[in-house]
């Protein structure tokens, strides 16, 4: 697991059924591109988050296939439909096999 990885997500606390809401998420990660060299001239191996998925009550909102051209501390903003109360799940997949997850509940009223 890469060091100091920390997800942040911003989801409204509540919505009306059928609303479209905007979600923002940010995760601290170096996103080492594999293009850089260290002081001795050796290539620093690629180490990035390569995939991100947001789902709601098990159904996909968005999936992003990520490449090394995504900036350090990857940021996404997108829109989701909220058909009912429930929970958003956010999953980031690291090159090293680890996954980082966060969840956020939303009420409908």
């Amino acid at each position, binding site marked *: 697991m890469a060091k100091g990885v920390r997800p942040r997500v911003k989801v409204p606390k509540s919505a009306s059924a059928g609303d*479209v*809401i*905007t979600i923002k998420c940010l995760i601290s990660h*170096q*996103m*080492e*591109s594999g*293009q*850089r*060299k260290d002081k001795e001239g050796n290539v620093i191996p690629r180490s990035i988050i390569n995939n991100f998925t947001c*789902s*709601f009550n098990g*159904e*996909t*909102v*968005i*999936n*992003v*296939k*990520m*490449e*090394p*051209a*995504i*900036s*350090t501390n*990857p*940021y*996404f*903003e*997108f*829109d*989701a*439909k909220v*058909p009912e109360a429930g929970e958003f799940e956010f999953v980031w997949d690291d090159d090293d096999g680890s996954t980082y997850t966060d969840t956020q509940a939303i009420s409908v009223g």
Partner: protein
Amino acid sequence: MDLTRRETLAVGGAALVVAALPMPAMASAVDDLINEFTGGADLADSGVDLIAPEIAENGNTVPIEVSAEGAASIMVLAAGNPTPPVATFNFGPLAGESRAKTRIRLAGTQDVIAVAKMADGSFARTSKNVKVTIGGCGG
């Protein structure tokens, strides 16, 4: 990513090498990626939007937004990067709109390309030139 001036030059250098290749060679890398995405289908000139700054203050963090009404997915490429792929956004059944914002790396001034796959299986393409400036203070 903490790029020193030397490393930044190296990244820029890599971009120069790419830029110095005969045009067909560079174009083909991007064309191949688009063909792979579209299966060789025709590309419409409208239907997908790409918002990116005309001038980016720093190539390490360039904000972009893509959108295409009703699109199933949108692929983003940076034609002048050492490796052109940037991201592919796949919109699920609960996507509110087929729209996303992110922040990307650009190795130098170049075209950013977005290709959208529409719900009906057709494709649309757009591109935007982004000028990447090199700072005065340690780059």
